[in-house]
């Protein structure tokens, strides 16, 4: 079920703005009226814009004392009934890990934006990387599944931020919005449609009476309905392993049931969640798998190889592109199917091999995987990727 | 003096004896009997002295006792 966006937060029109600002506009359009942040390059512009915009939209921005606080304050606001998000980059993202776990365990719908920069530690504050892709998947302790989106343009920073909020509400979890410094600071045309053309997933508030309500009893889609504070439900929320009532129940049985449900609600709905851009895959010999800013460099590389007239036998080498718009949940089935009919994958990314390992795992040895690694600080040269495409075709 | 009563939820008691010690009119004593967890809960030894002040109820960390005053006729 969806509703139209509240026009108060929608800055309808054609804009020339960067990805960070577009992300903020996406959050406002999605209905976010609360943000708690802590300054960190290269993400700060998102909350700077939110701080400037929110008093005239109606809502709250608070700059907290650190990322630990920023990443839990928004969850307080969510349980009060708000849509909320926080924004950070590598070092701050590391500090937020415990609260990503808390949001996963308590099924708190919210969005964490990470504008990735070079790491580890303070690393390269002003320069791009894609080194947090595994951290957003595995960074908090314990087992879980997440949803992550990776935009490759300011327009997508707007569009996909709305999608991130919608998925957070539908599946009740923190959605990871994985930008990178280039996309965040890149300025392009961003078209914001009228509010009545923006679909919003409302919060799945329970319709049950307080005395019937079980805060963690899931529906058929494995997601429970939610209550907000102040409505007489007198519910309990805990990060401890809990039963359907939300009470701590630290038994093997409860743990097994809860942790599997948290995993299955994403895996069983992966087809609904997952979106990927598929270009010229049908008869491809080589498929480039990329995401974020690197996907744009990869398109250039693909074009270079095509233009050079490379042949495979007596025909032209065919190169496809599989862009991970939702790196998580990983599209295992699609990669596996491709692996069965192509020569190899080329996976360029601004890290020393993260999503490339997933491609290799999912392809199950049916096709080779060539990782085009990069320690970050700038983007690949298209030539590096082009060379890897030729290698994959051999 | 106002007449009071106390009620004891024996099974919740953990035997700390705060109620016995701090009852201003010394209504209570620890019972020689055990509850199912092996604690000695309080019992009323001087019911006529109870004025229902509920100090026992305020001290009791286990929510196992409380006092109340009877309505005046």
């Amino acid at each position: 079920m969806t509703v139209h966006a509240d026009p108060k937060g929608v800055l309808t029109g054609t804009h020339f703005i960067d990805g960070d600002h577009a992300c903020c506009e996406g959050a406002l359009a999605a209905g976010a009226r609360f943000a708690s942040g802590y300054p960190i390059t290269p993400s700060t512009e998102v909350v700077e814009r939110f701080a400037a915009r929110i008093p005239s939209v109606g809502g709250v921005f608070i700059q907290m004392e650190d990322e630990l606080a920023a990443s839990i304050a928004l969850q307080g606001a969510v349980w009060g009934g708000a849509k909320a998000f926080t924004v950070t980059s590598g070092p701050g993202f590391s500090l937020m890990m415990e609260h990503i776990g808390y949001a996963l365990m308590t099924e708190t719908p919210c969005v964490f934006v990470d504008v990735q920069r070079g790491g580890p530690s303070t690393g390269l504050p002003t320069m791009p990387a894609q080194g947090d892709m595994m951290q957003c998947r595995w960074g908090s302790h314990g087992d879980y599944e997440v949803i992550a989106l990776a935009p490759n343009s300011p327009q997508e920073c707007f569009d996909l931020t709305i999608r991130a909020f919608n998925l957070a509400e539908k599946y009740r979890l923190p959605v990871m919005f994985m930008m990178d410094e280039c996309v965040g600071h890149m300025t392009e045309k961003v078209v914001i449609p009228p509010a009545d053309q923006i679909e919003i997933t409302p919060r799945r508030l329970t319709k049950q009476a307080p005395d019937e309500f079980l805060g963690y009893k899931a529906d058929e889609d494995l997601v429970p309905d939610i209550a907000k504070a102040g409505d007489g439900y007198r519910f309990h929320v805990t990060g401890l392993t809990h039963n359907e009532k939300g009470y701590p129940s630290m038994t093997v049985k409860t743990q097994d049931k809860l942790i599997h449900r948290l995993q299955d609600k994403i895996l069983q709905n992966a087809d609904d969640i997952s979106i990927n851009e598929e270009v010229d895959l049908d008869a491809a010999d080589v498929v480039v798998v990329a995401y974020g800013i690197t996907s744009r460099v990869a398109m250039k590389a693909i074009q270079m190889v095509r233009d050079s007239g490379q042949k495979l036998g007596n025909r032209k080498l065919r190169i496809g592109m599989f862009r991970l718009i939702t790196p998580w949940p990983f599209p295992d089935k699609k990669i596996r199917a491709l692996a069965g009919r192509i020569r190899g994958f080329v996976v360029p990314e601004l890290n020393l091999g993260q999503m490339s390992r997933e491609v290799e795992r999912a392809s199950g040895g049916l096709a080779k995987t060539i990782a085009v690694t990069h320690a970050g600080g700038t983007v690949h040269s298209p030539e590096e990727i082009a060379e890897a495409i030729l290698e994959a075709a051999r | 003096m106002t007449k009071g009563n106390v009620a004891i939820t024996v099974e919740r008691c953990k035997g700390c004896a705060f109620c016995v010690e701090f009852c201003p009119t010394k209504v209570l004593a620890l019972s020689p009997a055990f509850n199912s967890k092996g604690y000695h809960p309080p019992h009323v030894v001087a019911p006529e002295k109870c004025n229902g002040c509920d100090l026992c109820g305020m001290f009791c960390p286990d929510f196992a006792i409380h006092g109340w005053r009877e309505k005046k006729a």
Partner: protein
Amino acid sequence: MSELVSLHENPTEQFLRTDRMPHIWCPGCGIGTTVNCFTRALLDSNANLDKVSVVSGIGCSGRVAGYLNLDSFHTTHGRAIPFATGLKLARPDLDVVVYSGDGDLFAIGGNHFIHAARRNVDIKVICVNNLVYAMTGGQTAPTTPGDALTSTSPYGTFEPSFNLPQLAEAAGAVYVARWTTYHVRQLAKSMFEMFNKKGFAFIEVLSPCPTLYQRRNKMGDGMETLRQYKELSKRKDGASTSEVGLTRDGEIVVGKFVDRDRPDYATLMKAHYQHTMGDKYVETGAIICQ
């Protein structure tokens, strides 16, 4: 206080998740006593209980939220205050109470405490201070007084400890009081006053930890500690908070130390935006999404 006229049910009962009783607290622990005071203060305040939220961190005192039949949040270690900050700013119509322990609020959560006090966020903070990390087995806390034995200071502590009322006052709290679990009536009255106070209010309650503090320091059981509270405590309302620091066996100054007024965060925010933005400012009450 309440006139308990023919009230045949324990007044605390209606506030409890009775299906979770008995609680996990040890015999002689004082946390349950503070809950009695809290529930009586809530009753006296005539608060709409549907609009009261309790937020706890982690630890023995952090379990309070889970036992209270209110909207309750058992958050992460040290982060009850920032969670409560978000909840209160999104929902100014709610009464938001943070109920947690000394290690949670003043070690791992210390930074959040001082900043929430500085901002004067309208939340009420109750710290049950048992001088030790109890849930994890009796380790040294920032409140452990000089030379006490703990599991991580087997030769006695030597770190200076925090004087919590002084810290709270310096950071900006508008209401600061300290009691012990011996002072049940005074504590309930103080909690009642705190509910009626706008802004960041703080109550420290000293509570026995017979299992992990008293035992290791050969101080007897919970009863011994309550007798000690009775003997050593001296009420000094309005005392200078710089003079109320705790020592291991010395005087325990109790009372209401600070009761002052300054505008809370939400009031400052609204006034500031109205002043700087005029008609463009969209004032919000509760922030509730579609």
